[in-house]
Structures are given as C-alpha cells and as structure tokens.
C-alpha cells in the first residue's frame, strides 16, 4: 500500500519533463503508434482549439488524507502545495466578472485547505449555476473538524462529486488504501441523511468511478446501474449519476503502468479506442484549470504535467476570456485518455 507521494519518494516520475519524455519516446517515437497530434491532423482537428470557457476548475492544493495508487495529482499528506487566500481572492475576482457558469473545486482534498470554507462562502455569494466540490468522502470521517461537511455543503447548495472505484470493499481498498471503503460508505450515509443523492432531492451527489487497473471503464450507464443496485441493496445508499473516468497515463498511474509492464499495452488500448466524436467534447474545450499557485492550464492533467497555457496569459490575475478563446490547447499522448471509447472528462463520458 502506498504511503508516500512520488515527490516524497524522490521518484524520477516526480519530474514532469521525465513523464513527458516517456510519453513521447518509445512506441510514439518509432511510429509504432501515432502521436496525438498526428491523430488530430487526420481528422482535421489540429491544432485543438477551445470554445467559450464555461467551467473554472480550481485546485486548492495537493494535500490529501489518502495516497491513492492511481492519483494523477500525486497527492498525499506529504504534499504542502496549498492555495493561499490571496490567490483565492484572485479567483473570486475572476468569477465576479466572467461568464463561467460552473465552479469546480478539486485537490488533493480541497477541504484540507485552511481557507476552504471561507472560499466556498464567498464564491456562493457571487453565485454560479453549478458549484462542485470533488470530495474523496473519507475526509468527512477523517477528523471531527470535517464531520459537519455534509451540512456545510448543504448550506451552500454544493454539488458533491465523490470518488468510489467499486461497490466492493476489496477493489476499493486495493486502489485507495485500507479502510477507505468503510469510511466512504459511512460518509455517503451521512450525505444521504442530510438529503444528498436521494431521488427527488436537488442536493446533487454524483459518484466518480475509475478503473482499478490497466483497463478502460466500461459503459457508464451499465456501471451506474450496477453501482446503484449494489450500494442500495447492501447499504441503503442512494446517489444521482455515476461518472466513468479513464485513468490517464501520468503521475502515479504512469508509475504503476511502467512498474507492472502494462504501459505499452495500455497506450495501444487508448490509441485503438480513439473516438473522433469524443474530440468535440473534451473538457479542455470549455474548462480552465487553475493551479494552487494561480497558474492556468487547459486541464487538470496538463496542470500535473506542468504544461501551462500557451500564449501571453498564464496566471489567474491576468484572466481574459477573449484571449483564452484564441489560444491553442496544449496536447501530448496522455490526451488519448480523454478520447478513448465514450471519451472521458471530469463529468464522465462525453459521447
């Protein structure tokens, strides 16, 4: 079971350039597989260009109470990168003037940022249509000071999106750590108790499923039915939607793929499953990812590879919607993860 981040372990993969090199060498260098750029060229979608920004996804920091084996953030208790109140204020200033309709807070465990509640209260006052917090669930049970999060979420009409890799204990704990399944179940019950996820409720509770291994997620609707049945039959738990998300070959998941000798097969699987229809709806088209230090990225994955926005505007303090529209999106081979099969985004399948 993992206890430390790649960074703490001083793994070579903690170096993002090393990751990008791996993703560009070998099977992609010798033309065994086409690069993502050449695949986009074949369908006349290169360079990849964005639509209007609709979603601001803000990473409040890489600190997390869990050390999940697949984590693309390389998050964990040993990560100290945390968004400051000053940067949060810059995000709020942008929210006030922009047309963004969805605010999506992520991490690490965003709730561990000491200014998390202040930020949520301030952002709630500004008002967005959809205010998402990506909660790992176990944080709610981790410490007394987090036990009232379900009530706090309810008070601010937060849309809770939570990770749940499987409806069985074994599979969940294998990916996310010993005891995660039980704590997640208890947290889901607490959320249900305050009204989250129940049939007629406006308090939205969605779950995120990502495969615990070197394979793609199956059909999102079938998985949702299986999850709903199992969680209700076994624990009386209800939720709204299941988002099936593909693991992208970066950070700790890349480390796992390499160590288990699954890397090449996994890249083959992603490339063979390339779906041109998914390209139209990839999340980088309508999302901007804000790093803990205020730097801007086309998506959370690019953030973790330190692929900053192309162009003159790289920081939240310079946010300009018009400039954003004219940029081209930074791509590399990891992007195949978002275009495989039914596609993948932070909102699940895209086709």
């Amino acid at each position: 079971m993992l206890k430390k981040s790649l960074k703490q372990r001083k793994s070579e993969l903690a170096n993002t350039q090393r990751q990008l090199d791996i993703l560009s060498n070998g099977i992609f260098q010798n033309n065994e597989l086409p690069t993502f750029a050449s695949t986009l060229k074949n369908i006349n979608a290169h360079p990849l260009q964005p639509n209007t920004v609709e979603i601001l996804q803000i990473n409040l920091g890489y600190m997390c109470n869990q050390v999940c084996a697949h984590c693309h953030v390389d998050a964990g208790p040993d990560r100290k990168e945390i968004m400051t109140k000053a940067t949060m204020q810059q995000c709020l200033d942008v929210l006030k003037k922009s047309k963004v309709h969805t605010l999506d807070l992520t991490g690490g465990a965003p709730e561990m940022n000491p200014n998390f509640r202040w930020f949520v209260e301030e952002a709630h006052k500004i008002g967005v249509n959809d205010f998402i917090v990506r909660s790992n669930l176990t944080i709610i049970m981790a410490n007394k000071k987090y036990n009232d999060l379900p009530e706090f979420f309810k008070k601010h009409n937060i849309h809770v999106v939570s990770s749940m890799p499987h409806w069985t204990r074994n599979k969940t704990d294998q990916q996310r750590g010993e005891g995660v399944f039980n704590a997640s179940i208890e947290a889901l019950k607490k959320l249900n108790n305050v009204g989250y996820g129940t049939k007629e409720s406006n308090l939205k509770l969605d779950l995120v499923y990502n495969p615990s291994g070197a394979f793609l997620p199956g059909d999102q609707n079938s998985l949702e039915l299986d999850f709903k049945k199992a969680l209700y039959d076994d624990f009386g738990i209800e939720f709204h939607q299941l988002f099936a998300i593909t693991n992208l070959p970066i950070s700790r998941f890349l480390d796992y793929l390499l160590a288990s000798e699954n890397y090449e097969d996994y890249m083959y699987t992603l490339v063979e499953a390339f779906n041109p229809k998914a390209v139209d709806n990839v999340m980088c088209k309508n999302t901007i990812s804000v790093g803990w230090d205020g730097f801007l990225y086309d998506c959370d994955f690019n953030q973790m590879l330190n692929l900053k926005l192309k162009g003159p505007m790289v920081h939240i303090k310079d946010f300009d919607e018009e400039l954003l529209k004219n940029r081209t999106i930074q791509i590399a081979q990891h992007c195949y993860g978002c275009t495989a099969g039914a596609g993948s985004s932070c909102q699940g399948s895209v086709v």
Partner: protein
Amino acid sequence: MSKTYYDPADLKKFTNISEWNEELGQKFFDYYGKVFEEGALSAREKSLIALAVAHVVKCPYCIDAYTKDGLQRGITKEEMMEAVHAGAAIESGATLVHGVQMMNKYNKLSM
C-alpha cells in the same frame, strides 16, 4: 530467442483475417459484434459466458480479451472464477459421462 505458437501481439491483428477473405471475415465480425450486444441476455452475462468458453476451448487470446472485458464491466474476480468453474464442470462432466459408455461396454463384454 524463444519461439512460441502464441504471441499476445497477434490478438491485435485478429481483424487482419479479413485481408485474405474480406466477405467471410466481415460476416464473421458482424456476427460476433451482434452476438455480444445487449439482448435477452445482458452483455455482462454474455461476457461471463465467453470467459467460461474461452477456458474450455483453451484460447489464450480469448482469456486475455474476456478477463479485460470483465474488468471493464466491473465484473468481480469471484464472478470470473465461478464462470471458469462452470465451464470446467461441464468439460469434466463431458469426460466423466463417457464413463457410462465404459461401464456399458465393460458389462456387455463381461460374463
């Protein structure tokens, strides 16, 4: 370099069989695709049947393919192993039921 009859990389080349007979290849893959669609049986149930049969016909390509397919569908390892046992039970049963033929013959020839 060691050579084997089976190469995992050949599974990716399966569709190449159409290159030497496009009509039959195409008909087979159309049929194959249709068989595994949702029907009176769910695609999930069919995946488990395929996994059991893969073991009975001892097809390493099919075992790889339907283990991965099962994982993608969220099928548990317990379900997969039970499917393999169902296949193995039929296969061993098919052997053992011939024991009746052996007994019949034995009895016929014996005084």
